[in-house]
């Protein structure tokens, strides 16, 4: 059996589609709602989460045999925080304008429960390649939702995509609601509904305790 233990495809599909962090688990929606009023900020946030999530699951998984049980959460938080601060410093130094637009939300990736969830729930129990793949697929699933939300909100809210006018004001009146926070909730609601419609009816759900 290879390093992926024959679970590669399953792991990839889990995060990307079947168990998408936002669409299914509705986790980590604070940044998903806050920074998605423009496609450009959504893309940078997706990239940042991608780096942090893949990095975290890989590092945590490689340390899984030596992390003492009692401090495992703190260790994971230390890894996440370090990676997030690295991203934040990088953006502040080399992409100042975008880092200003994202404001505190880059630093707030630390509190994105999806990342800690993947590290704790998957990285601690599985080998490094599989965990890296899990982080990769979850980050990709997360990022995709961010991009879809960002594109939808920018298009409907400002009539632009990446700052270029797509829906001209002469015939489309931008709906400012989509740029504001309530619009984020509405867009996310439609997105989750669309996802459920495509995915089809739920199979028998496990009883939640």
């Amino acid at each position, binding site marked *: 059996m290879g390093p992926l233990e024959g679970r590669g495809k399953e792991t990839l599909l889990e995060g990307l589609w079947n168990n998408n962090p936002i669409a299914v688990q509705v986790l980590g929606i604070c940044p998903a709602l806050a920074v998605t009023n423009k496609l450009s900020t959504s893309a940078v946030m997706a990239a940042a989460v991608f780096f942090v999530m893949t990095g975290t699951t890989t590092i945590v998984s490689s340390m899984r045999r030596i992390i*003492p049980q009692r401090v495992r959460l703190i*260790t994971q938080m230390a890894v996440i925080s370090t990676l997030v601060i690295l991203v934040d410093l990088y953006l502040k130094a080399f992409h100042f304008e975008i880092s200003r637009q994202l404001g505190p939300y880059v630093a707030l990736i630390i509190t994105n429960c999806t990342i800690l969830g993947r590290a704790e729930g998957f990285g601690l129990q599985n080998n490094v390649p599989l965990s890296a793949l899990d982080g990769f697929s979850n980050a990709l699933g997360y990022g995709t939702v961010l991009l879809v939300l960002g594109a939808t909100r920018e298009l409907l809210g400002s009539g632009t995509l990446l700052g270029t006018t797509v829906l001209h004001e002469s015939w489309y009146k931008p709906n400012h609601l989509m740029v504001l926070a309530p619009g984020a909730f509405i867009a996310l609601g439609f997105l989750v509904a669309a996802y459920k419609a495509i995915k089809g009816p739920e199979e028998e759900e496990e009883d939640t305790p």
Partner: protein
Amino acid sequence: MQNSAYTIIFSAIVGIICAAVLVGADMGTEKYIKANKEAEKDRNIMEVLGISYPKDATSPELVEFFEKKLEERSIDGLKVYEYSEAEDGTAIAVLFRGSGVWGPIKGVLALEPDLRTIRGIAFYEQEETPGLGAKIAKEAFTSRFKGKKIAPTDGGRTDAGMKITAPGQAGGPREVDGITGATMTSDRVEKMLNNVISDIVAKVNGNV
């Protein structure tokens, strides 16, 4: 192996590694971040003074450009940026700050060479209520200040200051319309403006 000593040593090592990585990254990026902040301040100042600057310049280039165009002077502790290439003398810009409704507000005020007339104003950092007070950062609000006076035009030094009135009520040369639904923000902006205005009138006038 899972005893307390191991746990403590493990935590210490993780802490040291993380700290080392971060200190390294911080030292590596410090000069860029500093240049970016400096450039942002410079950009704001040139923006209100109406100086055209290269838009795609890197931060260090912009700082250099700024230092060539403007002169920074400190008058009794008040930092004044002088732009001597204005049409009829030296226009100045002064940074100001004050507390807003939710957090600090920072801005730049630029005056024409007569040191009485507002050349431009910008609020470049604010956390006011989105959709209401946050409109102070918008051109629609800041352009209302253009050409207004900060003190009586007869040269009197007492009674300097301006008024931010209820929306639609501004009439005089020292009155500016406030923002609908953002009385608290308007009041605070008025207060911080008057602070910096009295500072300017006391320290700069007759000193340039």
